[in-house]
């Protein structure tokens, strides 16, 4: 039995269970746990199993191109890395963006939050709670009644509608070709929903699949495509022309109307389907409040969605900034990503090496030297791992720490920080939900809380999207059609050397890019991303990361079927392509650089 500094007792004596690949996530991940004789998880090991080296690739490139490279870090949270990147470059070069660009960027970023949250809940997460096979036993009429009860204003609720879906499902299941449902854990007692709720949720799985392709059209309008819309240093690439000739080539009235109608669709879906589903499904799992992990202890948020362009002060961000440590919600600490003492990364348990062990480095001073090796107690071979040795190096993810603390980031962390700060919208939402579900505040520190926070945030972002759309239209009405500032577009106008940082709240949590520019080229580029925080391995002190912490002490109904593990890991919406990042090999030079 080992006690970690962040308060978890690890016991490796029980049966070891390996889940690899962890599915329904972005990228590649492995998880190993030890369960005791009662099926309770007593030790958890999470491993990022991919590495792409994007920051090495960025070296020497045009900083104006960096958004496109970093955007390809992740195609699920598409665009958020691009936004972070253009912000980092603009910060370094002192470029200000027009008001319209701020509104459009916010609309796009909020649109991503909503899209990502909905797709995550229905298509990556739902099968942890919902059993589509069980839905075959549902009575369509009773399902219709359930639907009308939980969401009276949702139009798709007739018995015939549910019968059609059920028939289609039946045909699918009876074909014997189960496709994505193959080998699911459909008879596992961990599934608690009655057949009618399963049918309703499965139906919404399909509805959400149809809707999500509509939501992203906002990206298509402003950025030309989705996934991976286009961005621009200095503003946004889409010009506005609502009055005169040639308006078909620009953001015109038709485009604005389309944006507006999609914003309304998002709001409708959140109100009629997403939130009611979370409440309804959550109601059946009220007693399953595992998975809190670090959320009640240590949460971090950088904040995002600035009301005014070029102003990232915490008080005018719509998504909150701050840090909570030691479980003390009464104090929200200021976060300064430029401070070399605050954000540091450790690699003692990651497949990298520093000049000396035990070192923690701020992203500006980062070093990455890949070093793939298995520990002495690992089982299997170098290219056929049976079991990892968590006492040694065991992940492609580094271990970032905030003032030495392992932190949780993401929707729940944002909501915990926001709640602690007394953020009015967030407080109202959380209190309202807890009242509806008749749960105490402590219930939010759970897997379910994480899932619920995401739904609440989707709803909040829907309203914010509307706010910024109105703001954009008002600004255009006032005669401002500007969308880009090109004063410093030409590299000849840049200083010889510059450094900057960009921050956003990605759907999965706090995201930061650090850039250093020299002679018009990228000299060094670093990303510390949400899943690096959440999926981090142990650090030098032995603190376990958020994934690992959240799995601790969870009871598994059937240890050989990882339903509970998936449920909790999915509640973070892991994004492994993001998390496994790399510093430039000669980043050592940066040790003398002072952060301004």
């Amino acid at each position: 039995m080992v006690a970690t500094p962040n308060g978890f007792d690890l016991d490796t004596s029980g049966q070891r269970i390996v889940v690899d690949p962890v599915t329904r996530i972005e990228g590649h991940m492995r998880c190993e746990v030890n369960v005791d004789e009662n099926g309770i998880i007593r030790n958890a090991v999470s491993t990022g199993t991919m590495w792409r080296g994007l920051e090495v690739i960025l070296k020497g490139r045009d900083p104006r191109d960096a958004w496109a490279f970093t955007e390809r870090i992740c195609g699920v949270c598409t665009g958020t890395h691009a936004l972070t990147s253009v912000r980092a470059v603009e910060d370094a070069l002192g470029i200000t963006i027009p008001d319209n660009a701020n509104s459009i960027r916010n609309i796009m970023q909020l649109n991503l939050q909503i899209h990502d949250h909905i797709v995550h809940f229905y298509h990556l997460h739902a099968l942890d709670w919902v059993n589509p096979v069980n839905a075959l036993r549902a009575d369509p009429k009773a399902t219709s009644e359930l639907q009308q009860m939980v969401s009276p204003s949702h139009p798709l609720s007739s018995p015939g509608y549910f019968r059609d879906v059920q028939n289609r499902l039946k045909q699918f299941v009876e074909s014997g070709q189960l496709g994505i449902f193959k080998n699911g854990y459909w008879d596992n007692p961990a599934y608690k929903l009655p057949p009618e709720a399963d049918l309703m949720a499965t139906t919404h799985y399909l509805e959400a699949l149809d809707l999500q392709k509509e939501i992203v059209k906002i990206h298509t309008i402003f950025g030309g495509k989705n996934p991976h819309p286009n961005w621009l240093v200095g503003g946004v690439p889409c010009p506005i022309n609502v009055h005169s000739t040639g308006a078909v080539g620009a953001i015109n009235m038709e485009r604005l109307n389309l944006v507006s109608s999609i914003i309304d669709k998002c709001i409708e879906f959140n109100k009629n389907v997403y939130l009611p589903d979370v409440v309804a499904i959550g109601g059946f799992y009220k007693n399953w409040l595992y998975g809190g992990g670090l959320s009640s202890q240590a949460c971090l948020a950088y904040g995002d969605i600035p009301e005014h362009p070029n102003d990232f002060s915490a008080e005018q961000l719509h998504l909150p900034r701050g840090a909570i440590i030691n479980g003390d919600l009464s104090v929200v600490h200021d976060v300064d990503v430029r401070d070399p003492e605050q954000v540091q990364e450790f690699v003692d348990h990651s497949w990298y090496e520093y000049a000396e062990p035990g070192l923690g480095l701020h992203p500006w001073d980062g070093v990455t030297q890949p070093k793939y090796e298995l520990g002495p107690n690992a089982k299997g071979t170098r290219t056929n791992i049976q079991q990892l040795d968590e006492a040694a190096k065991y992940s492609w993810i580094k271990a970032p720490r905030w003032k030495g603390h392992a932190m949780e980031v993401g929707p729940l962390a944002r909501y915990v920080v926001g709640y602690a700060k007394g953020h009015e919208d967030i407080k109202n939402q959380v209190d309202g939900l807890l009242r509806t579900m008749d749960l105490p505040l402590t219930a939010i520190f759970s897997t379910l809380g994480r899932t619920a926070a995401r739904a609440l945030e989707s709803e909040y972002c829907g309203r914010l999207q509307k706010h910024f759309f109105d703001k954009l239209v008002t600004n255009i009405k006032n005669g401002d059609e500007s969308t880009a500032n090109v004063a410093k577009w030409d590299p000849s106008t840049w200083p010889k050397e510059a450094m900057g940082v960009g921050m956003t709240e990605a759907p999965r949590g706090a995201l930061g890019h650090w850039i250093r520019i020299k002679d018009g080229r990228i000299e060094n580029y670093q990303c510390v991303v949400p899943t690096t925080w959440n999926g981090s391995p142990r650090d030098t002190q032995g603190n376990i990361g958020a994934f690992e912490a959240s799995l601790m002490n969870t009871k598994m109904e059937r240890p050989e079927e990882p339903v509970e593990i998936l449920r909790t890991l999915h509640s973070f919406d892991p994004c492994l392509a993001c998390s496994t990042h790399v510093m430039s090999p000669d980043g050592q030079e940066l040790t003398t650089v002072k952060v301004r």
Partner: protein
Amino acid sequence: MSQIETFYEVMRKQGITRRSFMKYCSLTASALGLGPAFVPQIAHAMETKPRTPVIWVNGLECTCCSESFIRGAHPLAKDVVLSMISLDYSETLMAAAGHHAEAALEETIEKYKGNYILAVEGNPPLNEDGMFCIVGGKPFVEQLKHAAQHAKAVISWGACASYGCVQAAKPNPTQATPVHKVITDKPIIKVPGCPPIAEVMTGVITYMLTFDRLPELDRQGRPAMFYGQRIHDKCYRRPHFDAGQFVEHWDDENARKGFCLYKMGCKGPTTYNACSTVRWNEGTSFPIQSGHGCIGCSEDGFWDQGSFYNRVTDLTQFGIEANADKVGMTAAGVVGAGVAAHAAVSALRAAQRKTQDKKEEA
């Protein structure tokens, strides 16, 4: 009655009549060089054939291809997954995980040997024994080779699988390698793009299901029907290009009039894709329409062609700062200066000689 949703049923659901179906069967028969006697057999096969199993594996990638795939509007992603194919392995969407997921893969390979389609998203890294991408404790490249061994055909989704994409951009630290360099004994259909357009992805799959053959490929192995022409060839801003009307700066008057983005570095003239015809997200828009030039994301090595905003792009072979004009102007400048100096010396020498000759004469 069989509950398996057959090819015929799928076609019927797509609005194809019995009559058209039989016509299609006879066309297939003649295409295969078979006589009319075989038509009923083909029809029978079509009516009873199960949905084609698809194994979808993921290497080093960003999942943008999966995301794009579910953006499909016609057919809808749900119709593809529920009625047209049997997506038997997809780490992104499948319910099972760990060894249950691996078992699903094995069962599919075993049961449908030679009859399933392998869809690859991302690519295998070969450095560090392939362990820069691990699936089930083993290098991804092993899974890829294993799944490819009995596949009927391989689809390389996106720029990653087709060409290597961003992780293979210089200096390619993980040695990320496109699929066709690892799998060499199977027909491979490249569907490049970062990501490919949703309807192009579903279009390629449904083509294979509907016509029961591989699409015609161009010299680079891409379906000619979607990648046969450049974006430039079908760009609605092309008249502005020919007129010589360009956006000169971001958000200038010309940008607001929708002029050509050529001077902003648009790669439409060198990019083969269907963006300007099919467009993105149910035809809503495409990059050029939204005001940003094409970055050429469906082209081989598009990351290493210099800045996305330059027309005359960098030649990394000559160093980071070099493009054709810089190299050429420097060389021409040096040669020009050399010529001028040489001319001066020649004149001087000639004059000297004249005086010398005069002296000798004198």
